């Protein structure tokens, strides 16, 4: 799908063992499959059905998403930061597209 844009807020720096809040947003219509067009035809479902966040390859959160998640899905959650590294965010679309975003954090 085109024009899908992720936006994530992560800390730039942290101390080892810190717990930080992460916020993520992605622009996506999350077409539920419940709506009908002006002709009365059902608009087919197309949603992001899964979101994951990993840090240096280890999982932080794995969310199974249903059509009841609002347009432009938003998630806020907490992460334990053991060391410097990369956050990997992945969103999986019904149509097979995969959207990704990576952010780094420095641990002093």
């Amino acid at each position, binding site marked *: 799908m085109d*024009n899908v*844009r992720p*936006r994530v*807020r992560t800390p730039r720096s942290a101390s080892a063992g810190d717990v930080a809040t992460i*916020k993520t*947003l*992605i*622009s996506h219509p999350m077409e539920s499959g419940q709506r009908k067009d002006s002709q009365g035809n059902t608009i087919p479902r197309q949603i992001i059905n899964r979101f994951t966040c990993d840090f240096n390859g280890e999982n932080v959160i794995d969310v199974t998403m249903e059509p009841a998640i*609002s*347009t*432009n899905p*938003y998630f806020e959650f907490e992460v334990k930061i053991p060391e410097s590294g990369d956050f990997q965010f992945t969103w999986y679309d019904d149509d097979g597209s995969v959207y990704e975003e990576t952010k780094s954090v420095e641990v002093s």
Partner: protein
Amino acid sequence: MKFKTMTAAAALALVTPAMLAADPDAKLVVNGQIEMTTETEAPEHLDGLRTIRSGWTFRTEETQSLQMDDFDNPAMIFVDEARDAWYAKDGAADQSCASCHEDPESLRGLRAELPKWNEEAGKVYTAEMYVNECRTERMEAEPWGWDSQEMKNMTALISSVSRGMTVDVQIDGPVRETWERGKEIYYTRYGQLELACATCHEENYDMNIRADHLSQGHINGFPTYRLKQANLVSMHNRFNGCIRDTRGVPYEIGSEDFVALELYVASRGNGLSVEGPAVRN
């Protein structure tokens, strides 16, 4: 049960005191930095109100908090899109907005005065008109639809760099005639329900019409992210929807009538802060 045309009086019989009361003392500070004036004395030209209040003050706490942080505000993802478009070359002249304007921040102050008189064009210009003039005349690119996603994103960006500034729209001089036309529209009853903008937004604000908690109808927060559409909504789109809901025939989005109405409604908010892109229900 058979009933014919519902008169305005009947429609207003359904107006009840607000159920969704927000905290009247809540202050709007965005990102902990931008302080907004959400309540102030009504401008001199406005007889019907003594105090003007931003639409923000009429929303529930949850909706209000969405606007207080640029990350929580879903509109900002569209502003990001517009930023990319700002720097992207488009059109036969091989220019981007940045080619002439440098950064979007260079337009700080513009939104607070819009819509305003354009001497060269000899009429009142809104943000959309300025953008399309640049696109067609200087960039030699295709104009964007008034209500297209690209245009809404761009007007959101233009508005965002003026947040916190005081709305100060000119009502005298060459704009006066347009302003008077806008004022006329504001106080005219439209549609089967015979409702004027003033009927709800001046005479019955803070009450509920069915399930909607009526605001004073200011546009300092536009383009706004409406939870209902889960997208940016332009001023004209909102005007159009309101008149359609009176079961009347609305003016066209982008029409001179709506430009006039936009000028008048913007001036009713003189004194409030530019909030756009805001978050509303």
